[in-house]
C-alpha cells in the first residue's frame, strides 16, 4: 500500500487526554487506519526521530501535534515535523492556545522549583537538593532536561496550518478533520476545524439566555443550587460560552456545569480572556464604582478563569514580571 497518504501524530507537553481522544474513536479508528498510513505515532508505535529525519521534506501529508511546548526537544520535534509535513495541525487546547499548563506562565521557574522541592509540606530536604540538568557520576553524568522560561502554543514555535480545538477535541471533530484532509478540499490556512460560532449559539440552554443580560451578583457554583435548564450567566454563574467557539457538543453544559472555554475563541477574537472580560463586565448591573467593584469582586481569579486554556496565546502571553 505505497500510495496511502501518510499521517503522523506527536505529543509535546500534554496530559495524554488528546491521545485518549484518538483512542476514543473506538471502532472508527479502524476506518482511519485503513485510509491512511500512520508513519509516526510514538504513543502507539515504536518510532525513531532519525526515521522521520530521513523522510523527504513534505512527504507526510499531515501531522497532528498535541501538547504545549516547554522544552527544546519539543521545539526541535515541532520544527522537524513542520519540515516533513505538508500540513501541520495543532491538536487540542495545549497546542492550540497553550492549555491549562500555560497557567504556569504566571509564575517563575524558580518559584516552581522552590515550592516543589523545598517547601512542599511532605518534603524532607535539609540540603535543599534539586534535580540538576547535569549530575556528575564517575566521570560521566546523568542528565535531565532544562525547561524553558515559558509555556508556548505550537504556533508560537512553528507555522501551523490548522487547529483542532478542545481539551480534548471530540472524536467526531477528529474524524471530520481526517476526512477533510483526505478529500483534498482544504480550507484556508489558519482555519480552526470547528464551527466558527460562539458556544452560546449551540447551547441547549440558549432559549433561557436573556437578550439583555444583567448580572447583579457572580455566584460561585459550589455555593449555588444550579438550575439544570437555565442559562448559567442568567444564574450569575460564570460561563465562558460567549467567548468560546462551539463544536464541543456542549459536553460540560450537559454535565450541568458551565463552559470553561477549552475550545478557544472564534476567528473574530484575538484574546479570549479580554473577550469574556468585556462580555461579563458589560453585563454588570451597576453604575456606581463601589457597586461595580463589589459585583466584580465575585470573580475571585479573573486570569485563571478567563485564560484557563489560553494564557500562552493571550496578547500578554504571561505575567510580564515573573
Amino acid at each position, binding site marked *: 500500500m505505497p500510495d496511502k497518504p501518510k499521517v503522523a501524530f506527536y505529543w509535546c507537553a500534554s496530559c495524554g487526554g488528546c491521545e485518549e481522544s484518538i483512542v476514543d474513536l473506538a471502532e472508527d479508528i479502524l476506518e482511519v487506519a485503513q485510509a491512511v498510513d500512520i508513519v509516526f505515532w510514538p504513543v502507539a508505535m515504536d518510532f525513531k526521530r*532519525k526515521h522521520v*529525519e*530521513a523522510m523527504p521534506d513534505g512527504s507526510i501529508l499531515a501531522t497532528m501535534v498535541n501538547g504545549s511546548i516547554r522544552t*527544546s526537544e519539543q*521545539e*526541535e520535534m515541532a*520544527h*522537524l515535523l513542520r519540515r516533513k509535513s505538508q500540513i501541520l495541525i495543532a491538536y487540542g487546547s495545549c497546542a492550540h492556545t497553550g492549555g491549562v499548563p500555560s497557567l504556569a506562565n*504566571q509564575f517563575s521557574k524558580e518559584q516552581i522549583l522552590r515550592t516543589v522541592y523545598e517547601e512542599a509540606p511532605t518534603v524532607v530536604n535539609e540540603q535543599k537538593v534539586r534535580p540538576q540538568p547535569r549530575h556528575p557520576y564517575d566521570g560521566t553524568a546523568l542528565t535531565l532536561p532544562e525547561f*524553558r*522560561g*515559558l509555556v508556548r502554543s505550537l504556533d*508560537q*514555535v512553528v507555522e501551523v496550518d490548522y487547529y483542532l480545538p478542545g481539551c480534548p477535541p471530540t472524536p467526531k471533530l477528529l474524524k471530520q478533520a481526517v476526512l477533510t484532509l483526505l478529500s483534498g478540499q482544504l480550507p484556508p490556512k489558519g482555519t480552526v476545524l470547528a464551527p466558527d460560532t460562539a458556544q452560546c449559539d449551540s447551547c441547549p440552554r440558549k432559549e433561557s439566555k436573556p437578550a439583555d443580560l444583567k448580572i447583579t451578583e457572580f455566584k460561585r457554583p459550589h455555593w449555588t443550587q444550579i438550575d439544570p435548564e437555565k442559562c448559567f450567566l442568567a444564574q450569575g454563574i460564570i460561563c465562558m460560552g460567549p467567548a468560546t467557539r462551539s463544536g464541543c457538543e456542549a459536553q460540560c453544559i450537559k454535565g450541568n456545569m458551565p463552559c470553561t472555554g477549552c475550545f478557544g475563541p472564534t476567528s473574530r*477574537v*484575538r*484574546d479570549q*480572556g*479580554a*473577550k469574556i*472580560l*468585556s462580555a*461579563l*463586565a*458589560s453585563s*454588570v448591573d*451597576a*453604575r456606581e*464604582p463601589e457597586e*461595580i*467593584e463589589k459585583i*466584580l469582586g465575585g*470573580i475571585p*481569579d*479573573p*486570569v485563571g478563569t*478567563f485564560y484557563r486554556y489560553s494564557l500562552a496565546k*493571550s*496578547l*500578554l*502571553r*504571561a*505575567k*510580564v*514580571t*515573573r
Partner: protein
Amino acid sequence: MEDRPITDKLVTSADWEPLIVAFFCNWCTYTAADLAGVSRMGYDHNVRVIRVMCSGRVDPQFVLDAFAHGADGVLIGGCHPGDCHYVEGNYKTLRRYYLLKRVLRDLGIEEGRLRLEWIAASEGEKVAKTINEMVEQVRALGPLRLTRRFKEWDAELASIEAQARSEEVATHA
C-alpha cells in the same frame, strides 16, 4: 493584528521616553484634545491619540494590544457619566476598566499604566493635565516595553532550528 511594534526605535533606544496610547471618544475627549491643541495648551508629545466613536468602543483587547505593541501606558478618555452620546457606552467602559485593571495587576502590569478619565469637550486643560500627569507617572514606573521583553523571552527559541539541522546533518554523516 500583526505583532509588530509601533515604534521599534523607541523601545530599543537607551534614552527611553514613555509611550502612552490614548483612546479618546470622538464626542468629548477627542474634541477637548483638539481644543487643547488650538488653545496652545502644552501637553507631552509622548502620547499617541486614537479617536474612537465612544469610550465604550474600547475593547479590552485594544488596551492589551497597545501594551503588547510597546505602549508603556494606556489612557482612555470618555464622556462624563450621564453624557454618553450612546447613553450607556461609558458605563460599560467603567465596568470593564475595573475588571481589566485586576487582570493587568495579576499579569504584572502596574496599576498606573492604565487610566480612565471623563473629559468633556470643553475641558481642554483637563486633557493636558491628565496627559502630563500620566506621562510623569509612567516615567516614574519606568519602561514596560513588552516588545523588547517578548524578544528576550523568545531569544531561547532562535537557535533551535539551526541546531536541529546541524544535528540532523551530524547523524546522517
